[in-house]
């Protein structure tokens, strides 16, 4: 077991170095929303650095004794600063991001692209979902320059982390079905928003239903 895994780890490092090599084996056993074959690990863009790993500071230095001086009979004065935090913020990018999101939403609505809804903790596409996507696929085939970001969303139940993984399964299930319907895979990217960007904020099933969705966002910017 141990040996197999470390061999696998070496394979991963090699494939990191030689972009385009398939990653670790076992790809064939992927299931559910992940059944897209041949999705090489390197293809999704290790472009920020050669290895996809940035610089790492030494974070091991722990202070000893909590920086406390101890209580004593003749304490000398300790001067306390306002702490080392924090840097000034530059919020100028936040507004641009919001504009970009609104533009994507408006473009998707104008194109009549439909959302796909899921059952609780499920990434299986329902009959309604198939019908919606059939129309979405038709639109994409008649608008060949359009690029779509498939977003996977979840309701608020469950943990943030697990819902991110669930949202990715939903997004990939939608992407894979669109590919089955003949949309070029290179026109579709996936992103999971988990439960972090809900369409609806009530604590009720009617709202949860709206949030368990795959959403097609028309790319307008980069």
């Amino acid at each position: 077991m141990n040996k197999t895994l470390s061999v696998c780890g070496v394979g991963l490092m090699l494939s990191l170095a030689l972009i385009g090599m398939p990653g670790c084996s076992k790809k064939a056993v992927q299931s559910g929303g992940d059944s897209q074959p041949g999705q090489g690990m390197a293809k999704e863009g290790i472009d920020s650095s050669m290895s996809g790993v940035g610089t790492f500071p030494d974070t091991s230095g722990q202070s000893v004794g909590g920086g406390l001086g101890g209580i004593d009979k003749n304490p000398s004065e300790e001067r306390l600063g306002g702490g080392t935090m924090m840097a000034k913020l530059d919020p100028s990018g936040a507004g641009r991001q919001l504009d970009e999101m609104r533009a994507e939403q408006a473009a998707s609505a104008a194109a009549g692209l439909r959302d796909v809804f899921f059952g609780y903790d499920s990434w299986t596409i329902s009959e309604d979902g198939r019908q919606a996507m059939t129309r979405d696929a038709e639109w994409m085939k008649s608008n060949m320059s359009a690029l779509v970001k498939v977003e996977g969303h979840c309701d608020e139940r469950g943990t943030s982390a697990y819902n991110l993984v669930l949202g990715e399964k939903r997004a990939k299930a939608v992407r894979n079905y669109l590919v089955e319907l003949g949309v070029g895979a290179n026109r579709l990217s996936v992103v999971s928003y988990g439960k972090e960007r809900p369409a609806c904020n009530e604590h009720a099933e009617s709202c949860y239903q709206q949030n368990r969705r795959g959403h097609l966002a028309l790319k307008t910017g980069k």
Partner: protein
Amino acid sequence: MTQVKLISAWFGGVLLLAGAVGILESGAADVFLEATRPDFQKISGGVLLLAGAVGILESGAADVFLEATRPDFQKISLGVAGIHSVGGPDWLGGRIEEVLKKDVKRSLVFDLVDLPGLGIQTSDIGNGVGDGSKAIFRQAAEKGVSVLVWGKAGLKGSDKEADVNMEGFVYDSGSDELVGGKRYAGSPSVVRLMAHRFADELVFRYTGEPGIARTKIAYVAEQGAARELFVMDYDGHDTRQLTADGFLNLMPQWSPDRRFLIFTSYRNRNTQNIDMIELATGKRWTVIALGGLNITPSLSPDGNFLAFASSHEGNSELYRLDTRTKAIHRLTTNPSGDLSPSWSPSGRELVFVSDRGGGPQLFLMSSDGSNVRRLTFEGDYNAAPSWSPRGNWIAYVCRTQKEYKLCVISPDGQKRMQLTTGQGVDDSPSWSPDGRHLVFSSTADGKSHIYMIDADGKDIERLTFQGTHNSAPSWSPAS
């Protein structure tokens, strides 16, 4: 003198208990006595606890723990005999006193006694050397108060920006000794910090641990469609915003040295990378850009490894990055989702979430990916694990009666407790560095906010009151 006996009897009781636990759990490798920490050597003499603890270590039973949250743990009774305003505004002392009392209470080391309620008037306590203070000490000893603390606070000058001075005193009725004090100075903006620091000194004196009053909590707050990182003091005060990029910034974790946060960033648009940010400077950069969804980063206690989940090879798998060589080691190979790694205090093991059996469950493995075994069997949804810095518990989110609540389980799976009940989704438990508290998010009051809870499920305290959605709290290491 009766007080001395009482205190030593208490320590003796804890030590006996710890020894017994050590024998019972001698197989649990990640259960630690606090005396094994690096700060162990700095503990000054006179702490009975320490001598006994060394005895246990030398006898070979290293895998034991002292836990202040056990039902039979007896707290040290402590009275705050006022922080008196001297040469400054009347509110100044009162403000410091309020913060100090809350810190003392939250420490769970002390039992905060109500001195006026015991009939003890403390206005004449002065510097603890006059006849008035002697009378107060006698009264306190008679009423079973083990420790008295008090202080003075004032302004150095008359203008608004003038320095604040605080002097704190400690009297120990067991030894009938004015053991000393602390003197602090700083701008009016550090008044709370003076109280926190004094509280941590008290905890340090009586337990040899640094205390948690100066720790911080990082969390995620909703801002429109964005989620940005914030840091606040452990008591919910002094909130500072760290990011403002308008994208999602999720699930921050602290570096062991408290200088950095590591988190998932959406600012790349096409892939979700793992970024780091330096608190002091705001400098931010990407550390994991493999492609796909990269989430739940967690640095090993020694800072040498980063465990994280990544879907860059298809589905979500766990990886371990050597932060010095940059070598990446794949830990899991499974068609299901693997995520949320959390390190044992020794760095030898990881607890993580996998849905390889259907719903999400907790699994354990060695830090090289070997020796995988399932930890949770109760319920069909167990996720978001966090391994206590003391090693004895793993906190996580358990689904019970369709609600998502906090549970803890021992690493051997033998003991399990549900900590919270009622409605709402509880998420992202994170331990205080002393292992006595958890911080978590909950929608119990409607919107998602941050709460603190004792490790035994008592005393829930809400920490955030502003904003529309606060989540993913992470408790800093002790300074």
